[in-house]
């Protein structure tokens, strides 16, 4: 064909399990590819034939309608056939092992499996036991790579770059896969990362990842370009990690007076769904500084980019 194919090594990768082991070049390729993908979402006809004949299945062992829908739409916009295994009604409830469930799905012939699981490492386990490509849509308290990619895309779209930016991540860092993937991704691009949260929700060893730990929200936010606010899980209160939602809000809810400490034109991200008045004040959630709604669109774009990059190429050429 008459066009030059600037080739990449991306689809030599069988799976995307986390950002920990993804190169800067790969991340940049995904983010760059997401730009034209985002254009497609804005068109009258939101469909390109690229992945015609490819099958994608989503399996979510934890409820997350929005992430699942985002993946499904991404697949559909690229003309892939998508379907979803509804876990609550599936044989998972009948005690079928994960390996058996995945084998069954594999025999139905899809090319790509998008999986969310409450247990860390479950997608890694699945990836080792299937010929399908596996995308981790969140595993336990480990990683949520596509969320971090869409966060990075949103940041880059607003700030024009990633390098040198100061980013604060606020909330339950200990249990947050969003925080972890963001830390791995942003650190690769030379961001200065701070986290803020109750000491009971700060995991050990963050300093070795180049992350500055603040217990106080104001300390974390001073001069930052980006604040990424995490959703607080109410059930953490039962395990004694904080005394009450009220006290959590008092100490860690992002309010305008905090944001005034940040750099000019700082933006606020949130993976959603937001708890207004708990981790983020309504003033901020509804302000121009919040890019929370754009993040949703960007999520579809980034997932389209990922599906395109991963599903091209013949299967027999995929490095095992």
């Amino acid at each position, binding site marked *: *064909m008459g*066009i030059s194919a600037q080739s*990449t090594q991306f689809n030599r990768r069988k799976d995307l399990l986390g950002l920990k082991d993804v190169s800067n070049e790969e991340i940049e390729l995904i983010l760059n590819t997401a730009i034209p993908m985002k254009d497609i979402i804005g068109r009258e006809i939101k469909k390109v034939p690229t992945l015609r004949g490819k099958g994608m299945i989503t399996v979510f062992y934890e409820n997350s309608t929005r992430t699942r829908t985002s993946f499904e739409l991404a697949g559909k916009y690229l003309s892939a056939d998508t379907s979803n295994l509804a876990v609550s009604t599936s044989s998972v409830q009948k005690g079928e092992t994960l390996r058996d469930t995945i084998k069954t799905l594999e025999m139905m012939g899809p090319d790509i499996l998008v999986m969310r699981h409450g247990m860390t490492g479950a997608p890694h386990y699945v990836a080792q036991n299937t010929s399908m490509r596996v995308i981790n849509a969140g595993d336990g308290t480990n990683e949520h790579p596509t969320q971090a990619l869409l966060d990075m895309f949103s940041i880059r779209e607003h700030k024009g770059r990633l390098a040198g930016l100061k980013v604060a991540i606020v909330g339950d860092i200990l249990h947050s896969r969003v925080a972890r993937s963001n830390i791995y991704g942003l650190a690769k691009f030379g961001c200065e990362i701070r986290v803020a949260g109750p000491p009971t929700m700060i995991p050990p060893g963050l300093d070795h990842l180049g992350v500055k730990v603040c217990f106080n929200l104001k300390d974390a936010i001073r001069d930052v370009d980006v604040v990424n606010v995490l959703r607080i899980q109410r059930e953490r209160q039962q395990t004694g990690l904080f005394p009450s939602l009220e006290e959590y809000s008092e100490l860690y809810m992002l309010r305008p007076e905090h944001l005034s400490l940040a750099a000019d034109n700082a933006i606020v991200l949130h993976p959603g769904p937001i708890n207004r008045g708990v981790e983020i004040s309504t003033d901020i959630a509804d302000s121009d500084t919040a890019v929370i709604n754009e993040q949703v669109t960007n999520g579809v774009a980034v997932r389209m980019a990922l599906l395109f990059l991963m599903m091209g190429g013949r299967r027999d050429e995929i490095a095992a």
Partner: protein
Amino acid sequence: MKLRDKNQIMDEMSMKRALTRIAHEIIEANKGVQGVAVVGIRRRGGPLAFRLADLIESIEGVRPPVGVLDITLYRDDLTALANQPQVHRTEVHFDITGMSIVLVDDVIYTGRTVRAGLDALIDLGRPKRIQLAVLIDRGHRELPIKPDFVGKNVPTSREEVVSVCVREIDGDDKVTIQELVP
């Protein structure tokens, strides 16, 4: 294997003459430039589309809208490629519905790129008609596609490569036939 220049078939002047003639033909075929837009196929169709628009403007005094189409997502060989090509943006910032679109590419060969371009274009809207302008027609069509405007017909063998250089991308304007040498 690498490519070696065999012979040059166009230089800057002959390219300019060919494009000027095509511009005239486009105006003539469309009885003016009313409702005409020029859309180039990335990469080298893009600069050629802008040049055609410049030439049309210099002849008619009216500049047709110009756009650039990225057809990567419409290619029919994606699953056969070892690695995915980089996707770029399609930049057609006007509504193509009802317009006469002149699709521009540097070389027509099998016709598959043009097929992808037609699909990509139709996903953007419903043009009144689509015409095809190419700088070089080297034959060996695999689809029933025929250009409306041709700069130069160049009989080639399948072993040869037609290389179009444009100054916007490559620094100078020329067309050469290359052959593979071990």
